[in-house]
């Protein structure tokens, strides 16, 4: 794995986008050298982070930060006001 990298995503809150956001995190994890199982876990964690937020934040923008560190993915979700909605960590093998 390379040096730590961060992807910042600001996206409209819409439940139909969730499958594609999950897929994006999984694809990015694979691109960063995670094995398929860890990438799937990243997908599951993204789903759990977003599914609650999308329900309680009907409109507006959600921010997802994916920070890839050596063998670790840190996911953080913020609402439009910059308030932290939740975090998750996935160990990447």
């Amino acid at each position, binding site marked *: 794995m390379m040096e730590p990298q961060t992807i910042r995503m600001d996206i409209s*809150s819409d439940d139909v986008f969730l499958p594609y956001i999950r897929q994006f995190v999984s694809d990015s994890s694979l*691109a960063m050298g995670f094995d398929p199982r860890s990438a799937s876990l990243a997908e599951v964690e993204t789903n759990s982070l977003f599914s609650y937020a999308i329900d309680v934040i*009907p409109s507006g923008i959600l921010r997802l930060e994916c920070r890839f560190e050596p063998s670790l993915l840190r996911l953080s979700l913020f609402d439009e006001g910059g308030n932290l909605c939740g975090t998750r960590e996935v160990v990447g093998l």
Partner: protein
Amino acid sequence: MTLPVSTVLLEPFAEEPTVSVLRLYGDIGLEAITRISALVDDLVEKKRFHLLVDLSQVNFLSSPVVGALMGCRERLMRRSGSIALLAPKPELAEKLNLMGVNLVFPYYSNKNAFLRHFRWEYQSESRSLTLEVPAYAGYVPAIRRLIAGLLLSKGYTPREAFQLESIVDELSNNAIEHGLPIDKKFSISFSFDKSSIHLAVANGCKTLSSEAQERIREKFRNPCIIPGSMRGRGIALVKKIASDMTFRVDAQRVQVSITKMREES
């Protein structure tokens, strides 16, 4: 307030003034049809053509009532209106699905999901995505797929989604390969509504001389395809696919923006 076993109420929808809510309670049988039809007639007369039928408190909905709702749907849709079902209980939803009701009426599990759909469909609300991504080509396939997925999820065709993928691919790889972003990042701004798509890809760069800036502008204005070479086709392809392409080249930043109008269905 205690409600009778079967109740039909019409209320305004607080979150969206153009929508009325038909709230049903209990077991809804034949006796409710006259009232439902009268309420919808009244709505049509008042030129209120969007109806949300709240089924969250309904235990049973008879087939003739479903038929009456189909009739209401016809009346509203003839006037460019809509009708949707809100939060049927799982057992009721299963029965309605067996009757094929889900093929005719959209269901929403909660008000927020309905509002998101309604505002997109009837009020031209747009959706947006902004990405700040490390300048690493390995991320580009993930970005392509994400953008294509967002478009497909909102009813754009696979062809349109693929065309956008191609544009994202070309502009992102350009930003990474030719932009040599000094901060090792590039950004994508993407927004779309029912009728058009806007995309901008930007990168910072080492300070460009006036001549270097002009050379880049010229590449965007007149992309040069060298016969027999696979290089240099990206911008020409983007121009061909997009409805419009603009660019801005400054001393430390390059941005390419495109607009693509939705194809006629």
